[in-house]
């Protein structure tokens, strides 16, 4: 029996889909059976980010309405045998399925996998309600921007109302340099504000853009800092204790000397 995670944020464009694809891929790398469900009906992206777009025959709505069997709609990943994607429909909208149907679907899938990740659409309407209906736990993705944090706060409240306790937080797109100069909210600010458990910090990384465009999740790239962060996050989900990544690059030579001499405390 697997666990269902919904990956949500409220605000759009903070990296829900990228997060889903990367966590899913790296959990599969660790050997778990993973199913990714794209709940963003009408604006599907997860298939593109996973590079599986041209393999879609049936989708989530077809399964929910009984037009095909679940097995027919699940697409196996090109790279990992234990990774599957259930794509969203592109020609329908969020009202095409109901929370009850989604719940039944999640129950059915989680019997045969270790982790089921649901990529939630932006917003708090029907699409959100569908996505969280079958979830056991939630991962809230936010970026260090006031608007994104505000929306995350609202989402956490709504998750509470849907009886999903203790959501986990991923802080995406941190720029250590801007945090250092005080131009960006830092990790502590956001955590203090949202008061939920931190699952991981992902640095802003240009390689993410390249990898999403290519359909190859960044976790496959061993040089990507963001990929490393997502691999750590997956290990934490799997129950390992992994220390948070040090986002500082160690500074220049003089910084290191100062730190050695105890002149700098950071």
């Amino acid at each position: 029996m697997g666990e269902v995670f919904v990956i949500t944020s409220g605000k759009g464009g903070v990296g829900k889909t990228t997060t889903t694809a990367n966590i899913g891929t790296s959990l599969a790398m660790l050997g778990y059976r993973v199913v990714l469900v794209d709940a963003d009906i009408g604006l599907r992206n997860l298939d593109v980010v996973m590079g599986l777009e041209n393999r879609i025959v049936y989708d989530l709505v077809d399964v929910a309405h009984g037009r095909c069997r679940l097995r027919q709609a699940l697409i196996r990943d090109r790279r990992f045998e234990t990774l599957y994607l259930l794509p969203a429909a592109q020609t329908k909208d969020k009202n095409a399925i109901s929370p009850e149907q989604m719940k039944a679907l999640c129950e059915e899938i989680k019997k045969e996998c270790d982790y089921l990740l649901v990529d939630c659409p932006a917003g708090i309407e029907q699409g959100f309600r569908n996505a969280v209906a079958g979830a056991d736990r939630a991962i809230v993705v936010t970026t260090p921007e006031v608007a994104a944090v505000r929306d995350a706060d609202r989402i956490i409240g709504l998750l509470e109302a849907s009886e999903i306790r203790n959501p986990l937080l991923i802080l995406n797109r941190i720029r250590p340099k801007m945090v250092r100069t005080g131009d960006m909210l830092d990790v502590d600010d956001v955590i203090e504000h949202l008061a939920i458990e931190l699952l991981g910090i992902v640095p802003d990384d240009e390689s993410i853009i390249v990898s999403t465009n290519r359909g190859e999740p960044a976790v496959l790239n061993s040089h990507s800092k963001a990929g490393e962060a997502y691999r750590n996050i997956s290990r934490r989900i799997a129950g390992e204790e992994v220390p948070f990544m040090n986002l500082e690059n160690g500074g220049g030579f003089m910084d290191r000397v100062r730190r050695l001499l105890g002149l700098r405390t950071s």
Partner: protein
Amino acid sequence: MEQEAVDAVSLRARKKKRGRRAKEQIDPQEDTALVESQDAKAEEGTSITAGSTERDEQEKDDIPVIRYTSVRQMRDDIISQEQTILVQRTIRSGQRIFYPGNVVVLGDVNPGGEVIAGGNIIVMGTFRGIAHAGALGNEDAIIAALQLEPSQLRIAGYITRAPEGDYASVYQPEIARVQDGIVIIEKYQPGYDIYHRADRKRGSING
């Protein structure tokens, strides 16, 4: 003399309760039990404090005990005898709590969160949302927080909002109240408030 005062107090308590019952559906059993116990104490004719044996024991030590009871009483240091709830949670954006009495929040109130109380509001945390104290018309209601950075404060019919632009946030407990027709926010000074109110409200009872 004391007997009379006590009777008057318990009568007022009863009247007020009866009035409220219609609105709030207070558990009738609990309510009658309370009134009965008040009557019993009033008959003793000595004082409105409970458990005389316990009291004797304590006063042997010569330590003066300031006793407050659940009965409404006339005292300058009691600023509210409304019912109070303690809420332990973070009030997040889009969440609103309402209570006809006083509200104490053990947690933060985030931007977009609302706390509406018929009485006073105390937040043991950072207040960044909207507060409405004295929402049923009590202009003496206060709003206090360990860190007060509200987007809007309302006390009875008075509304204020945070000043525009950046301002240095103060890391100190603050208290907001209505004074001379405007909402003022000042540093919370322990105990100071009693004298403040006592001067203003001498003669009238119960805020």
